[in-house]
């Protein structure tokens, strides 16, 4: 069954022996020590691991937000290291959506302006981007708050705006770095529902770093990272069996 699924799906992100080292005050920190993974289109993957395990670093690598020390990242079989600055900007703008733990909305823009910013960068006309922005805000249930600035909204609402923004140019991949970490249980659940819906209805590949165990229920695969290495990868069904057996 798993074999069949892999055959019909394409690999959208592939990493080969990915390593990242930081040198801070003369001390070498090895955040990633050789990661090889393949992620398929339409998948919902959870990446789990304790703090400092290299989750975020891994995320930044596959999202083309940071460059690896050694190793390579292929996005849809294109080597990120070979791309020019313009191509990278296009990739970040059109093909990948980012959701951060700290939302990272631009403070002086309204919700709608935040959502339309990637469209503006993508060269869309104002009228069109406005229309699409409103549709996206509707999708996350914030249509009536479009003119509010981030400081006038709750954490959950801000994260929903961030989700709407990440979807601005209909990306194929959504990278979420602990999207529910700063939210209470109920709002976290709302966010997860939205993500699940996106994955099922639009076929967006979602890669989600999280501590949230509810994520296990909705994702296709789980990936554990520890000390900069992949500890294990498992299908959801397997994990459930395990959890059951432990109980």
């Amino acid at each position, binding site marked *: 069954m798993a074999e069949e699924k892999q055959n019909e799906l394409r690999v959208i992100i592939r990493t080969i022996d990915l390593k990242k080292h930081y040198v801070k005050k003369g001390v070498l920190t090895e955040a990633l020590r050789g990661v090889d993974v393949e992620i398929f289109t339409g998948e919902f993957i959870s990446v789990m691991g304790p703090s400092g395990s290299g989750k975020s670093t891994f995320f930044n690598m596959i999202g083309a937000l*940071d460059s690896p020390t050694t190793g390579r990242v292929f996005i849809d079989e*294109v080597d990120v290291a070979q791309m020019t600055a313009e191509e990278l900007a296009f990739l*970040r703008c059109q093909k990948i959506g*980012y959701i951060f733990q700290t939302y*990272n909305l*631009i403070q002086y823009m309204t919700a709608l302006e935040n959502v339309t910013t990637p469209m503006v*960068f993508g060269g869309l006309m104002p009228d069109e981007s406005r229309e699409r922005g409103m549709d996206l805000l509707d999708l996350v249930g914030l249509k009536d708050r479009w003119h509010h600035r981030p400081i006038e909204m709750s954490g959950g609402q801000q994260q929903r705006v961030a989700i709407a923004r990440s979807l*601005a140019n209909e990306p194929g991949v959504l990278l979420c770095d602990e999207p529910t970490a700063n939210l209470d249980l109920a709002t976290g659940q709302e966010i997860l529902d939205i993500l699940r819906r996106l994955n099922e209805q639009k076929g967006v590949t979602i890669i989600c770093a999280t501590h949230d165990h509810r994520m296990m229920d909705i994702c296709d695969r789980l990936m554990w990272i520890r000390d900069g290495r992949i500890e294990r990868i498992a299908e959801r069904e397997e994990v459930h069996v395990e959890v059951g057996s432990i109980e």
Partner: protein
Amino acid sequence: MKRIEIADQPRLGFVRVVGVTVDGIRYRLFRAAVTVAVIAVAVAFLMNILSESLIKREVAARTRGDIEARRLVQVWVARLSEPGSLEELLREIAAAVPGGDAYREAAALSGLSGEEMEAMARGCRTAAVYLDFFNSLDYARRRSLVYTAAGTGIFERLRSGPGRQAFLQALNELKSIRFVTSIEDLTAFLERWPDTRRRVKQLREGRRQAIEKVAAAPGGRDLLTALAEGSIGETVRSAGFRFDPGIETEVARQARLILDGRTVEKAVSMPEGRQLVARRRDMLPADVTAAVVWDFLSDAGNARWYRDRLVELDLPGAELSADHLTELAEQWRQGESLVRAEHLTMDMGTGWLGLGRRMSWLLMVSMLVCGIGISNAMLMTVTERFREIATMKCLGALDGFIMVVFVLESCFLGFVGGIFGSILGNLIGLGRMCAAFGARALLSIPFADLSVGTMSAVGVGIALAAIAAVYPALKAARLAPMEAMRIE
């Protein structure tokens, strides 16, 4: 499933970029105001120095012109009583425009042919250059070069063997001195010097004779009175001087004012006249000076009263009208203000923009301080927005876009700050100059120079702000998005 196809990110139109920039400034209005204030203060300082110097320079030029015009009578009295020293004549000829009045007058008085006149003018011009050079030296250097010789005596000394030897040796030793011409040119000039000297002496002789002719004329004994009466114009002209009727009228007017002024001051020198003013002013007669009297007479009521008393007591000046007394007082006041302005503007005219060396140095230091202040403000503004820059890069902003946004923003802040600053600087400068020179400053505002100065001050504001923003913006734009976020 959608394939990921990579293309180049489009560049944004300028209007879009400006829109984003203005939004950013509007949101951070307070922060922007602080930055603008820093720039404004810096530019105001610059503009203040600039505007004060420009106004002062204009006042100085105007003062010199006024003084020259007011001293026309003194100039003519001097010319008609003394032929002048060799050096004075030499400089006069050097400054005379060939074919001009002074030149033609010199030709007529000296009786030199056109060719000889030309040779003399040439010699005088060269001589003036050398004299200027020796005058610019400090005492010690000058002494080591030409010993105690002064004026045209320098040329005589340099022509003598030992004098020339000492000069060349000293010039060789004093490495800091650059002589104005080559030594060959100097030698050539010195060879021609006796001819030049002879011609200038001939001119002096011609002048002396002309002066004698004027003095021998009836009414020529007291020159000032004669000039005031306008009775010797014809004699002066026939003696060979170029004494235009227009100049004659003005000289006569000034001479009359001086004579009338003397009459009034003569009354004050008498005990009766002094007591009049002392009683009115409630002071001791011994303390009444000419200045007190003129101040007293500048009031029309006082002048009328004073004139009536003069008539009563039959003192000198009784023949003058009260209005004329007030006018004389006004003349005296203007003369005093001219003297004061001349004194205050004595240091003008050297260095860049006539600022003087000290002011130029101050201006440079202030530019440096402004630059650092503005750099600091811009550096803070950009670094505190690293997170925003990183976010924008995650959303697909190009490096160029980020650069343009930040440089544009600082240009805008620099422009606003520059405008405020230059207005402030101009106002302060004008105020201070008005306090120092009074109406004289208001009359001589050099609008053209000031507007150029204002524009350049605004330009300096914009340039400093833009340059200061380039480095941090470039640094932020070049970083990978996550690195920028980490720095914060």
